[in-house]
């Protein structure tokens, strides 16, 4: 699915592909506000805390969007390895069109950075 998205963005020539990643603990609804009835509060935020502190149950929520098309998926611990392989090869394959750094430029950049770091260290 993600491949389609990348391809579409390339062919259309406009638009950005955005990918977002965050932790997911199975809470689909909003947690009720604390100011409301104490019973609800105990139930709502209590259960929220339980799942978050439990650990090992969390998954990773990954979203991708392009203009108006949206995709999302949750990766659980069991699927992590497989997903990661597929995902990384996908990223590598589709994110091209970036400049390639020459060896000289790279060496110069790293040398400049190292020199700057040394100068700072000396000054401090």
């Amino acid at each position, binding site marked *: 699915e993600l491949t389609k998205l990348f391809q579409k963005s390339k062919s259309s*020539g*406009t*638009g950005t592909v955005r990918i*977002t*990643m965050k932790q997911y603990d199975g809470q689909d609804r909003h947690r009720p506000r604390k100011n409301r009835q104490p019973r609800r509060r105990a139930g709502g935020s209590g259960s929220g805390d339980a799942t978050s502190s439990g650990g090992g149950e969390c998954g990773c929520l990954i979203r991708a969007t392009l203009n108006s098309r949206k995709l999302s998926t949750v990766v659980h611990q069991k699927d992590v390895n497989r997903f990661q392989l597929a*995902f990384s090869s996908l990223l590598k394959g589709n994110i091209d069109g970036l*400049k390639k750094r020459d060896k000289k430029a790279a060496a110069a950049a790293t040398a400049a950075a190292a020199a700057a770091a040394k100068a700072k260290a000396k000054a401090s």
Partner: protein
Amino acid sequence: MTIAETWEQFAQVVDMMFAEDPKRCRVTVSYQPAQGVLVLKVTNDHVTVKYKTEHAQDVKKLEKLTSQLMRQLVSK
């Protein structure tokens, strides 16, 4: 919003933010083929750090970083 100058800086900040509060931290990767730019953004709703790049070798690093993060996110 801070802009990181080098990948090492960015990686450090990401680790720090994630260690502090994994539940609130999120990473965004956005690729603009029109300009040939790759932008990474990390935020924990208080602080945001961005990293912009046009270089192909950063894609490899990005991919390493994302896989590492994914593992951490799932294990916690």
